């Protein structure tokens, strides 16, 4: 599949004007990501990886350079156009899940389709399908507080999948989960990838990055390394000493 890249960043820059000094968070990043790639973006804090993720996710616009997402020039877009692109092209998965606490799993998954202007019947059908896809067909009427951390992240993944986006953009998706649950989520990502989904995952954990087939490392606002690797197969049944990492947001 040697078509046009789904993500094309050229000399991407982001400066923050803080009065006296200008912080150059991104100093010119060139990157191409093709359909069905599974990319981990790594880097220490302050490396610019959050800024990069915000630009890729169309939550922010670059100060300089070009960004083309699925054939659309995002760099100069206005806020409402960005909202439309986010709605159609990107499925976010956050570290803290970011589900609406008062809505059921089903309602949470339906939400992107509400903003996409889908009719109620189709919304419902697609949301049910997405929840079944992540193995939560029996938890649709539960609120986030009635679900475990892993289940919440599955709801968030279902919500990301429901619009059939160009890319899944995951920001530290296992940061709030214990290691067993993390492996489960990684197994789910591997499945999605196997089905053709493009996945971009921001993480600082090498264990997690090991599941991707390509690792891009940022440092001081530029790409320090970009290497391909053989992904580690997830081991959902591996027993470890469970460290109680803060579960739940």
């Amino acid at each position: 599949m040697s078509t046009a890249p789904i993500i094309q960043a050229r000399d991407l820059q982001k400066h923050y004007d803080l009065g006296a000094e200008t912080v150059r968070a991104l100093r010119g990043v060139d990157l191409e990501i093709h359909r069905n790639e599974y990319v981990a973006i790594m880097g220490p804090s302050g490396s610019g990886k959050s800024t990069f993720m915000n630009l890729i996710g169309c939550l922010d616009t670059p100060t300089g350079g070009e960004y083309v997402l699925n054939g659309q020039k995002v760099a100069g877009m206005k806020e409402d156009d960005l909202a439309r692109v986010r709605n159609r092209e990107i499925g976010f998965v956050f570290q803290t899940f970011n589900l609406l606490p008062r809505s059921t799993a089903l309602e949470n998954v339906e939400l992107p389709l509400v903003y996409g202007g889908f009719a109620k019947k189709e919304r419902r059908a697609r949301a049910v399908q997405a929840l079944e896809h992540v193995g939560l067909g029996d938890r649709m009427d539960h609120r986030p507080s009635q679900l475990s951390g892993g289940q919440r992240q599955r709801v968030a993944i279902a919500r990301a999948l429901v619009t059939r986006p160009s890319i899944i953009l995951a920001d530290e998706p296992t940061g709030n989960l214990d290691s067993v649950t993390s492996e489960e989520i990684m197994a789910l990502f591997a499945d999605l990838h196997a089905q053709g989904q493009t996945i971009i995952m921001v993480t600082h954990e090498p264990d997690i990055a090991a599941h991707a087939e390509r690792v891009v490392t940022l440092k001081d606002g530029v790409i320090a390394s970009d290497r391909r690797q053989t992904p580690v197969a997830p081991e959902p049944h591996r027993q470890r000493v469970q460290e109680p990492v803060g579960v739940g947001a």
Partner: protein
Amino acid sequence: MGIREAVRIALAMIRANKMRAFFTVLGTVVGVTFLIAVITLLKGMDAYMKEEFAGRIVGHNTVLLRRVPELGEDPQTEDQWREWMRRPLFTQNEAEWLAANVTTPGLLSYSYDQSARVGNGRGKELSGVNIIGANENFFRVREMDIQAGRPFSRQEAQRGVPVIILGVEVADALFPGLNPVGQTVRVAGLPYRVIGLLEKQGAIFGFTMDRMAIAPAKSPVNGGVWEQAGKVEDISFQVPRGELVPQAESEITGLARTLRRLRPREENNFSVETAEGSLGFWEKINGFLMMALPMLVGVSLIVGAVVIMNLMLVSVSERTREIGIRKSLGARRVDILTQFMIEAGTLSGFGGLLGIALGIGLAQLVSAVSPLPARVSGGAIGLAMFLGIGVGLVAGVYPAWRASRLDPIVALRSE
């Protein structure tokens, strides 16, 4: 995002924060409550003035012909007052000529009244009884029903037979516990046979309408009690439908001018009134109150709007993260704006509903403890609902605009 979706979210938020929602809309509730109560009472008052007061004194769909006005304005100058007092009364013959010559369909009654003492012939007496001398149509034109016995007939009226119909207060005073029909009373010493008993008439502005007795105009009270023998004070012409009132008014005026032999340029030396037309003074007061009182209500609605705006701002800052999530999922500014506007509108709409219920309750309470009747109008409820929702929308604009302007990255990071 559809409006129904936004309303559903708004209802969920109200359910989740019932107490806060209630205090948020308290100003709106108070404003709408008083709006409804005031309009309901004014409408009731208006109906009371037109139907009870003017209607019972002038009569429904009735043209009242008199020497001087019954309800209209008082004379403005002494000269005018003297002119009024020089005017002749109409006579019973003139009234009958009018009845014979009027072409508009209707019923003509004439009457005079004079206060007199009435006794039962066995020592019991009641003074200050309003003795009305009338023709046989009087009962129908004035809508006075007879609860026992009968009214007098046309023959009895023509021949001046001494028969009388008593008001309940007179009957109770003279014949306590007895059936007055068939008894004899003495009106200023003149013997009359009681043939009927009126239904209880009640009071108008505290004046009893039951201390009265009605006899044929040509019976012995004509001259015996009423000193202007052969004359009448009131000539009433009742038409079957309201649309005929203007026609009847002009025809009666024309016939009366003929009777008075007035030349075309001469002014009327009599008065023609209708229930609606005679209430000019009330129309003025009512018009002013209907303007002024809702403006006072408006002040409390403004206070209500300020409170709603503040609480919506609090709500927006509490839900910053939710706004960030929605934006990351593709909500446009207009989606967020609409959501918060509808939330404010729904909230204050609830306040409006509550206010309408309380306002109707308050009006019913006032009418229960005072003679003022309450008349709930659909217009007032519509206005209240419009204002209630409007207050929320106006108050919601700024907080909703703030919410819609939030940066999704900052909003997502907030706790």
